[in-house]
């Protein structure tokens, strides 16, 4: 399992971009907030300056109103607001100066204003003083003279200028504040979206990563299981092969030892006979008893030919056994040649080659199989089928006419080739034994070495298949050859 490198790289880049975006959004929000704060402060300062200016002017107006009222009525009650206003004016002036100096940029012109106010105050004080001394006419004249009025107009103009400038500044700052807050809002919304995107991306990447990890783990587990199964299969094969070799070695040693016992035994018997004969032949004129003559006769006529016969037959039996073992071993080593085969044709050929024997016993063969293609070793399949058909003819039942039925059934990648007969059948205890080397089952009324089915089994296993039998004693047997449809796969997995 390989990790998707471009995927990891892309997701890292995406995560990095998202994070950068987020950081820039946060930074700009901070800058914007600072800007908003500055604008707000400016606005507050401007308002303070404006209200200070308004306050100062209204105090001045209060003082003038009080002065005028006193001059009109000479009622000292009017002097009270006048005097209050005059005392507060200095304070109001300081307030205005401070407020204006607190403003960072735009400079209100207050230089002339304060001297004008001074003049006005002096004019008012003078008139009030004159009136209090009793010269009301002079005081009224001074007022009607218009100098105070002019001063007041100039002051008002100045004040108006300051207030108007303040208003403009306030208006500007308010709209600036508005636009900054709008931008801030936009930035915050953008930040929210960016957070969502980055978070979503991160979750998506994590999920995908976790998903691929889980997938990888599952695949690993599956592989592990398969591996274990394959190991188990192989182990079973090895155990089976080992058991077979042991069984084989056991049979071979026993069967080879049996003729050896004969050879050694009859050689000794021969030796004994020679003694009997030599007692007669090498007597050289010495007297021979009647018994010795009889023994010598017996030895030459019976014992010696018998011993020689057994030695000869045992030797040829040993030779036969060795040849049979060699044949099976050679079959196991023969290079299999997979080719395209039609089972129906092979079965028909095998039956045709034994047709004369089938006719002799009045038998009948039914080729029930339909057309079925195999990719396998022709010689092995032919030999297996020939052996099975030969057995069916040999071990037919004496009570009824021989019937052989050959069929083939496909099972996925395997095919079952079935040779069924109505012969004498095999006892249940002998079902395994019939496949063993040099072993035969049932009445020994037919010639045979006990090699055929052992040979069939070794051929079937070489093809990666198996031979099996089911039988009802007295009714018939069915031999089932199970073999892969494609031998090349078997050969490949064997060499692997």
């Amino acid at each position, binding site marked *: 399992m390989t990790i998707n490198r471009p995927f990891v790289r892309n997701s890292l880049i995406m995560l990095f971009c998202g994070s950068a975006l987020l950081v820039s959004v946060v930074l700009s929000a901070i800058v914007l907030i600072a800007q908003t704060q500055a604008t707000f402060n400016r606005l507050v300062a401007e308002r303070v300056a404006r209200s200070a200016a308004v306050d100062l002017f209204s105090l001045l107006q209060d003082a003038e109103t009080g002065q005028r009222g006193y001059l009109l009525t000479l009622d000292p009650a009017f002097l009270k607001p006048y005097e209050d206003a005059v005392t507060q004016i200095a304070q109001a002036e300081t307030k205005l100066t401070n407020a204006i100096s607190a403003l960072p940029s735009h400079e209100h012109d207050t230089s002339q204003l304060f001297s004008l106010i001074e003049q006005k105050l002096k004019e008012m004080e003078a008139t009030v003083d004159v009136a209090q001394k009793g010269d009301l006419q002079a005081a009224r004249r001074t007022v009607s003279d218009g100098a105070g009025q002019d001063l007041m107009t100039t002051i008002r103009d100045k004040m108006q200028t300051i207030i108007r400038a303040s208003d403009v500044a306030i208006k500007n700052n308010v709209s600036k504040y508005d636009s900054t807050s709008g931008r801030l809002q936009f930035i915050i919304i953008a930040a929210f979206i960016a957070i969502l995107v980055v978070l979503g991306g991160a979750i998506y990447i994590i999920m995908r990563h976790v998903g691929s990890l889980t997938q990888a783990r599952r695949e690993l587990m599956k592989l592990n299981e398969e591996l274990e199964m394959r190991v188990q299969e192989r182990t079973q094969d090895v155990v089976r092969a080992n058991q077979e070799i042991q069984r084989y070695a056991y049979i071979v040693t026993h069967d080879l*030892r*049996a*003729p050896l*016992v004969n050879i*050694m035994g009859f050689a000794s*018997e021969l030796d004994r006979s020679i003694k009997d004969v030599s007692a007669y032949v090498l007597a050289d004129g010495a007297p021979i008893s009647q018994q010795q003559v009889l023994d010598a006769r017996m030895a030459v006529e019976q014992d010696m030919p018998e011993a020689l016969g057994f030695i000869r*037959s045992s030797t040829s039996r040993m030779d036969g056994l060795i040849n049979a073992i060699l044949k099976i071993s050679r079959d196991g080593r023969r290079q299999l040649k997979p080719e395209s085969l039609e089972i129906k044709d092979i079965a028909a050929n095998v039956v045709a080659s034994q047709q004369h024997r089938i006719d002799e016993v009045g038998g009948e063969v039914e080729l029930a199989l339909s057309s079925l293609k195999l990719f396998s070793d022709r010689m092995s399949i032919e030999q297996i089928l020939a052996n099975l058909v030969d057995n069916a003819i040999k071990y037919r039942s004496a009570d009824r006419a021989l019937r052989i039925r050959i069929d083939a059934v496909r099972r996925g990648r395997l095919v079952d080739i079935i040779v069924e007969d109505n012969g004498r059948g095999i006892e249940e205890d002998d079902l395994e034994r019939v496949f063993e080397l040099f072993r*035969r089952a049932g*009445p020994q009324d037919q010639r045979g070495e006990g090699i055929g089915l052992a040979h069939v089994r070794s051929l079937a296993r070489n093809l990666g298949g198996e031979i099996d039998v089911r039988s009802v004693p007295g009714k018939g047997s069915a031999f089932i050859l199970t073999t892969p449809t494609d031998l090349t796969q078997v050969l490949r997995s064997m060499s692997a």
Partner: protein
Amino acid sequence: MKANGREVTIVMIEDDEGHARLIEKNVRRAGVHNEIVPFTNGTSALEYILGKDMSGTVSADRYLLILLDLNLPDMSGTEILQHIKENPFTKRLPVVILTTTDDAREIQRCYDLGANVYITKPVDYEGFANAIRQLGLFFSVIEVP
């Protein structure tokens, strides 16, 4: 060798005719002159001992001693042993296993199934002849029911 005053018949189940002949020769040399009935396969031997119907009644009043080879072409010797020892009429018949097999498990199995003596055929003839002679001695002292 007699049982209840009657001659005991030796049933020899041995597929190898040479072995059969050698056994017979050596049994005779050991001074045993009982009738020997040879069989070369298990099917016909069992038929003789248990009868065609495998009931064993044919052996009810026969005095048999069975010499059995384990490796037979048609069935295994242990199977024959089992049949004989399971049958109520034949289970007391003495069975001598005489075979080339010296596998310890096989020997144990035969004794478990009720074999009376187990003898491995030695390849060298002196040993073989000696074993049979001793078997003759055994025959001369054995009581057959």
